[in-house]
């Protein structure tokens, strides 16, 4: 069953009156319940734009987004979604628990539940010993981890993660990967944007390849590799992008 439906989504950024930049062009895909869906693409391919549109942070030029049967602006839908932005920026004067409490309150959660989840999540992301430190003293990896905790404070059905391993060391990357697989086992649907192919290859059930705002291919990894006669994900990635660029040149 599709839990996320994106239909013919287009986003243009206008510079002045006449010049427009394509953020996304006519993108459609579905995410099934309980799967990890990876959005792949080079920098500037439209991955983050797509996620921001899905969360109602940006307005689409055209197209439809349906998450859990509701549109992307619906606060009730957002109660079931957790989001980790790329290079997470938070209120750096707050401590980890204060940040989680702030976000927890925005979900209308009872204080008791918030406090219980804060304890649990700080252990999960291994930040319980940094409880009293303000976020300004966190390293990049710690910020990424508190971001993961913040995205889980509402125990969401859907988790949207934008480049969750940016800035993490290899062990941090591995731990994040394990966490994603654990969350999948718990029944969560995960939408993951990344340009780390190995990471996507290890955790994703299906993928989408974005380039210059276009969705070039989507499907199961094996299915796509067969379709493009590719030798692994890296080859598939290069082939789809090169094919698109060649068409563009013509």
């Amino acid at each position, binding site marked *: 069953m599709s839990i996320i439906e994106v239909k013919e989504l287009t986003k243009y950024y206008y510079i002045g009156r006449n010049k427009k930049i394509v953020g996304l062009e006519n993108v459609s895909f579905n995410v099934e319940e309980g799967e990890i869906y990876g959005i792949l693409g080079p920098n500037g391919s439209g991955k983050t734009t797509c996620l921001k549109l899905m969360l109602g*942070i940006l307005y689409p030029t055209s197209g439809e987004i349906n998450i859990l049967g509701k549109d992307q602006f619906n606060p009730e839908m957002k109660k079931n979604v957790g989001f980790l932005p790329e290079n997470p*920026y938070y209120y750096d*004067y707050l401590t980890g628990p204060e940040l989680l409490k702030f976000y927890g*309150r925005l*979900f209308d959660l009872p204080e008791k539940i918030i406090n219980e989840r804060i304890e649990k999540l700080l252990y999960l992301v291994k930040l319980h010993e940094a409880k009293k430190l303000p976020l300004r003293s966190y390293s990049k990896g710690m910020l990424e981890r508190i971001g993961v905790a913040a995205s889980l404070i509402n125990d969401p059905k859907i988790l949207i993660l934008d480049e969750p391993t940016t800035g993490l060391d290899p062990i941090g990357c591995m731990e994040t990967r394990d966490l994603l697989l654990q969350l999948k086992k718990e029944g969560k649907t995960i939408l993951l944007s990344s340009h780390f192919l190995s990471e996507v290859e290890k955790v994703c059930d299906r993928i989408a390849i974005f380039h210059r705002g276009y969705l070039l291919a989507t499907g199961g990894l094996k299915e796509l590799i067969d379709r493009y006669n590719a030798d692994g994900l890296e080859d598939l990635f290069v082939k789809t992008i090169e094919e698109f660029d060649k068409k563009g040149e013509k």
Partner: protein
Amino acid sequence: MKKSWIIGLNTFKESLRKKTLYILLVVALIVIGASKAFSFLTAEEELKMIKDVSFSSIEFFGALIAIFMSLTAISGEIEKRTIYTLFSKPITRQNFFMGKFIGIVLILLLNFFLMSLFFIGLLIFKKSPPDIQVAKTLLLIFIELILIGAITLTVATFASDAFNIIFSFFLYIVGHLISYGNQLVDRTENFVLKGLGKILFTIIPNYENFNIRDKVVVGIEVSRNYIFKTSVYWFLYLVVILLIGSYFIQKREV
């Protein structure tokens, strides 16, 4: 409303960290304290001087705080990208805007309270405890500051910080000169200018409505009716301004 309150408290905490706030507050307290320096005047004149300088300082420095704190309340969230995480939560953009407004009101309340407390302390020290006229003057100053903050916050929903700061100060000055402006408009014989002038001076907030300090300092009583009418004017203006802000924040791309 609960979510706006949560965002408001966070905005308040964030504003407390801004150095500009403390600099303005300290300068305001120094100026208020300096009003006591005119000891060569008679006791009555000195008291007038303390009241005049204090009311003016609370209003002027309060206005600076209102403008500076509101100016970056929204753009700061966009620049630091904290707005992305916030907008992914189950809040509406109106919750966000009203939260920012609540945060500004709280920070103004704190500063106003500290400045007023210092001023009242001076009055008590001079054995002239504040009367109801002083309270009325302070009340009108406070609601004027809220309006100034709300206007800057609303302009911040669609304009750049640079435009906003110029616009807010321009409005602050013109808003205090509306009676002069109206006199000029009345004198002109050009119908177009007269019409445009009338429209302009109706739209621009008349901050002089909130200024009763000149009367209170010299002992002229200001009626409750005037306070009530001014409060109604303030409330209606505030509602319209906040509605405009809510509209533009809904439209804004972040």
